[in-house]
């Protein structure tokens, strides 16, 4: 790939060295908070991020540890593999001191994944589900459950058609009663915003519980 990481520098090398100090007055960075948008392939994660983000989604490649359990030989240790995944993200500036980041991360069907970097400090997660391939979201649900991260299951309404209704989805996922299972449309900002607000409600509950103890 013919990518030049410093085109500006090549175009005008002196510009950088003569960098004026006045326009580099320290801007205090915003406090970043993040919400994870997870789910199987093609369920609408990037669409979700793009619908609400103030920038068109960017992509970063990162390592994710996949773990597969030795099912054929239950006594065998689990196998861990590191895979590079492409992660889309976007952001919403709340005000100049606070910025919300959304990270869309693929969960690969049939593999549980571990990604402590991703959940560290996260407010919560929206698990996007396409009901025609409901089991694609299982690894994400398993992971957030075990990580103790607040999450919400969001059934993306592809063409208004839903394979299963919300009760059936809840039954299949067997998530705790306090985990919201809702329907949303990844293409619409208002719908994504409302789904994220439910994630934030869950996060607030957790933060208040933590404050009490």
């Amino acid at each position, binding site marked *: 790939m013919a990518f030049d*990481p*410093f085109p500006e*520098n090549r175009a005008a090398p002196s510009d*950088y*060295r003569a*960098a004026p100090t006045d*326009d*580099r007055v*320290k*801007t205090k*960075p915003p406090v*970043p*908070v*993040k919400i994870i948008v997870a789910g199987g392939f093609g369920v609408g994660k990037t669409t979700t991020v793009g619908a*609400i983000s103030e920038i068109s989604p*960017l992509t970063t*490649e*990162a*390592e994710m540890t*996949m773990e*597969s*359990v030795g*099912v*054929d030989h239950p006594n065998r240790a689990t*196998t861990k*593999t590191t*895979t*590079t995944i492409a*992660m889309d*993200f976007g952001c*919403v500036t*709340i005000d100049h001191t*606070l910025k*919300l*980041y959304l990270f869309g991360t693929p969960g690969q069907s*049939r593999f549980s994944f571990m990604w*402590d*970097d*991703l959940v*560290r*400090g996260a*407010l919560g997660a929206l698990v996007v589900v396409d*009901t025609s391939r*409901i*089991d694609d979201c299982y690894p994400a649900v398993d992971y957030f459950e075990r990580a103790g991260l607040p999450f919400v299951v969001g059934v993306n309404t592809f063409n208004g058609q839903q394979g*299963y209704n919300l009760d059936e*989805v809840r*039954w*299949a996922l*067997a998530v705790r009663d306090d985990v919201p299972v809702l329907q949303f449309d990844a293409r619409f*900002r*208002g719908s994504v*915003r409302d789904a994220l607000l439910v994630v*934030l*409600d869950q*996060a*607030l509950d957790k*933060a*208040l519980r933590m*404050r009490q103890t």
Partner: protein
Amino acid sequence: MTGPDPDRPAVPGIRPFLREQAPADDRPPPGEQTTSLRPFVLTSGRVAAVDPNIGLETQVSTHPRAWGARLSPEQRAIVQLCAQPLSVAEISAKLRLHFGVTRILVADLRAAGCLEVHVVESEFPDPDTIMRVIRGLRSLS
């Protein structure tokens, strides 16, 4: 009245985690492991752990000292980008550097005094911060 749709069982399958066993074909696909020389070269072969508090969303800004420093092209690109605070994820995306590589470069630049890395201790955000996010999102149309 149609018969049962074979593609749509009456009830979806329950989450395997809750069953005793996961499906039998639970094996990572071969060749998924990606190794390339470039990240290794960029980070001078460094594999040591960097501060785990440097996350995707962590804000990074350039220290004035960086403008006089001798830097590699990648480091210089980072220093230029972060004249205004930027997240590690954005640096990674804009420079098309793997996140892991970006994180190491950022950690090195910080150690050299060229970057300020505004780490937030890994605690869960406090209720007031969350309330502000809620208010901010609600005001989005």
